[in-house]
């Protein structure tokens, strides 16, 4: 059970949050101009990394804000948390 440092509320129990999958997948600005394959790439393809992964999280039972998290999926270490729109760390 993680202890997650919500950038708006501070440290809270994982049970207050929900994970929204891989981060930094940008919705295409002009979907109609994409081929089926390009659209499928956006719609379906996720990396599901074993190791350091960039994820979207939502403080669902708190401030309801979305933010990003860098988490190592092998040991659940949270390396960084940053707000939506902020630059991801290296």
């Amino acid at each position, binding site marked *: *059970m*993680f*202890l997650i440092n919500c950038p708006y509320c501070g440290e809270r*129990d*994982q049970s207050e949050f929900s994970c*929204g999958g891989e981060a930094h997948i940008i*919705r295409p600005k*002009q*979907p*109609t101009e*994409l081929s*089926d394959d390009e*659209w*499928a790439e956006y*719609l379906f393809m996720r990396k599901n990394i074993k190791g350091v992964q960039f994820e*979207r999280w*939502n403080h*669902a039972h708190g401030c*309801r*804000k*979305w933010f990003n998290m860098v988490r190592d999926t092998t*040991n*659940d270490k949270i390396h960084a948390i940053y707000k*939506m*729109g902020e630059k991801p760390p290296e």
Partner: protein
Amino acid sequence: MTKFRVNKTKHVDQTKTISFNFDGKSYHGFEGDTLASALLANGVHLVGRSFKYHRPRGIISCGSEEPNAICQINEDTDLTEPNVRATEIELYEGLKASSQNCWPSVNFDIGGINNFISPFIPAGFYYKTFMWPKSFWKKVYEPLIRISAGLGKSPTKPDPELYDHKHVHYDVLIIGGGISGIIASKIAAKNNLKTLLIEDKNILGGSTIFQKNENYKINNKYSSEWIDEEIYELKKLDNLTIKTRTSLAAYHSYNYLLAKENISDHLPLNKRNCGIRQRLWKIRADKVIVATGAIERPLVFNNNDRPGIMLSNSVKKYLDFYGVSCGFNNVIFTNNDSAYETAVSFKEKGIPVEIIDIRKKSNSKIVKNAEKLGVKIYWNSTIVNTFGHRKINSIEIMNLSEDGSNVVGDKNRIKCDCLALSGGWTPMVHMHTQSGGKLDFREIDQTFIPNEIDENHINVGSCNGDFELEDIIKNTNNKAKNFLKVSETEFDNISVLNSKELDKRNIWLLPNLISEGKCKSFIDFQNDSTAKDIKLALREGFKSIEHVKRYTTTGMATDQGKLSNMHALGIIADTAGVKMGTLGTTTFRPPFTPLTFGSIVGRSVGKFFDITRKTSIHEWHSQNNAKFENVGQWKRPWYYPINEEGLHDAVQRESKAARDSAGILDASTLGKIDIQGTDASEFLNRVYTNAWSKLGIGKCRYGLMLNEDGMVYDDGVTTRLGENHYLMTTTTGGAANVLSKLEDYLQTEWPELDVYLTSVTDHYSTASICGPNSKKILTKIFPDKDFSDESFPHMSYQNAKIDMINCRIMRISFTGELSYEINIESKYGKSLWEKCIEAGKEFKITPYGTETMHLLRAEKGFIIVGQDTDGTMTPIDLQMDWIVSKKKYDFIGKRSLYRSDTIKEDRKQLVGLLTDDPNEVLEEGAQIVSDINKKPIEMIGHVTSSYFSPNLNKSIALAVVKSGKKMNGKKLIVPMENKNINVTVSDTVFLDKENKRINA
């Protein structure tokens, strides 16, 4: 006092007698006893039968590792509990316990026949045998296996007791109140750290508390005396909380731990008062110090499972802590020095004891001490067989060959009534590995020890692989100092005297004269797996320890292999010729010991299991005989039977009334989202499939929301309340998800939009009045309002007042009838409803529930998201092309509507179905086929909604059918169990295709 109670100790109060019952017989024990110690004091060793072979089994240990002594307690009461370890139950007045897995009794057990046919039921027997013939499985094998499976009996009545959850935060948590846990707690608490110490026994001190031996002294005191003083001092510390009778169940990441506190389990039933029985502690600690100790290993040799064969240190605890001698003619079988402490204890009390030692010699102090006391030691020897049916009576020993791989010389028979085993120690690394920690293998004594990398927890004491008293104290002190950043402690200059124990000689499977196949060398006592089974698994090609475990069921019983896992690993390593360290271990999963369901659910039982949401009009519905239906968390009126009316009759009556005169529905549960902001119109354009920019203020519009994959997600009517202000309604069940989905897009994809979303579902109550007389009713309620079609047309809204209270009236319809929805602040919901009922009296206004609502909308072919759709339907599949804007550049899901898969013509599409016999009502979910003769029969769709329509006087149904759009008029078949129903594909709109009624 029974003859086995040889010793007076301060831990058992022999002035306070407690009577209890085991297997129908009455016995006496004393305050301070466990069920196990009291049974042993009465000479009872045989307490159960093994799971597979039904062999007689006795108490082995004195703790949570016990595989054999598991009982059903307080049978025939609501509080009965199966699989309870006798070694952990504190004795109380009137305790009733019985053995499990035996019939008719533990002394004479019919299932014992399995022991004689055991050569025919090896590992994997069930997998191999019950495969054939296939038809036997359901009628013969499965019922048989179910009868013989399982151990105790579950209670059949609801649990009358309460369980609690408690959330706590601590600077330091210490798991285990033995010597290292006590030292660590003292260091933490004395340095201003808020500390919690938990211990699963009812007192602190671990095994040090009964250690009174010349060879083990701390600051020149017996270690038991030293620890007593430490405990006394410890209890005075302010910022230390000590919780005994509390066992750690799980260690999750980020130092989140669960522990179960037993509050009333040790009390007589009549003193429990139905207060809280157990409390689950949910602990978040900055730092965790694991001091869970070690468990003694048994030895694996032929017939090593008879009652009277126990672990050496447990025998010592029964003697020195409980004052009970497990035998008067004891033999100790060991491969290390620690068992000699047991021998010395026996000898000091004048009880005969002999030692069989696998090793060739040992010169440690404790061994010399035993020799000096006259203990006879058979060096370099092993046991090759044991005798005695219900209790051990003798053993046969032989000498070991030079390399230990064989036995040599003559057999020597020795009489005994208790055989104490010591195969060395296994550190309890469960907590460390549960937290994600890795293990290292230590060759010298064949143990897995924690490899610490996590900076937030450490392991101290024997769970860290320190078995010498001096190592335990000094290493615990040093590690705790470093971990807690303390510069000096009172333990820095402690003087410790101990025996300096020498190497052990480890032989996982002891050799024998007779062939391995004929030996019964048990590894897992509870699941009856033997060394032979492990070797069979390896021969049959199982290589991974996880596979061998599952195939032989080793370590899969209620004790989770606390005594057996290491031996299984060792034998696999020896047989396969690999190093044990390279095999790894099986996974240690929580809970460490079984948890009750009660403690897991806590107070979330009965009506607290889930939230129940009721509308403000609920009371009226109840008073008017409504039957309720669960819709998500909401209770919605399902139908309102009059007198003895059933569902069908009530719905027929309600549906007819709604179309003939007037009906009223509580629509308060529909999700309502208030949308404001300068970009609100643009936002709606992006989330709905149709266009919103041109919707006038005061107008309503139906919208369909898709997922990005093009599938229908939700629908509802949205009203434009002002220039930058909308009120969106969603489906009852989808409200929360729609709000989070919209928030997600706003925050992450379109942060540039000026839009604010607020859930107002609970803020407003809604009464929906429909039917040809609805306008007249509304006019009575709002006499000042003009309800003519010109000033208040369909799909528009107006503000109004009832008794000075503001409300909103929307003229929208989900039934196809002329229909108005009145929204009012929730606190006035019931009074609004009553006003409507009063005003509608002369028109016989009829309250209707969800079932009638479903029927009415089906007559009009309106979909219900989640009933007629299932996450695989596009608007095109639903024949709702009209709502998908061709002009809009983009909206959620637009691009997916012309993916190669979504434009396929043979997708399942929504159609109407009419049965050839108009009285035949289809079953929802029934499959649809076109050709019943071609095998295998292809299923081309299924029924999604089906009703008998009283307004059309025939059965109607909606269904999804492959290529359904092109099938209008086609005959299809709905095959049922007893008959085939003939149907014809129709339009989805069954009633009033011209939409005349809406303006009637």
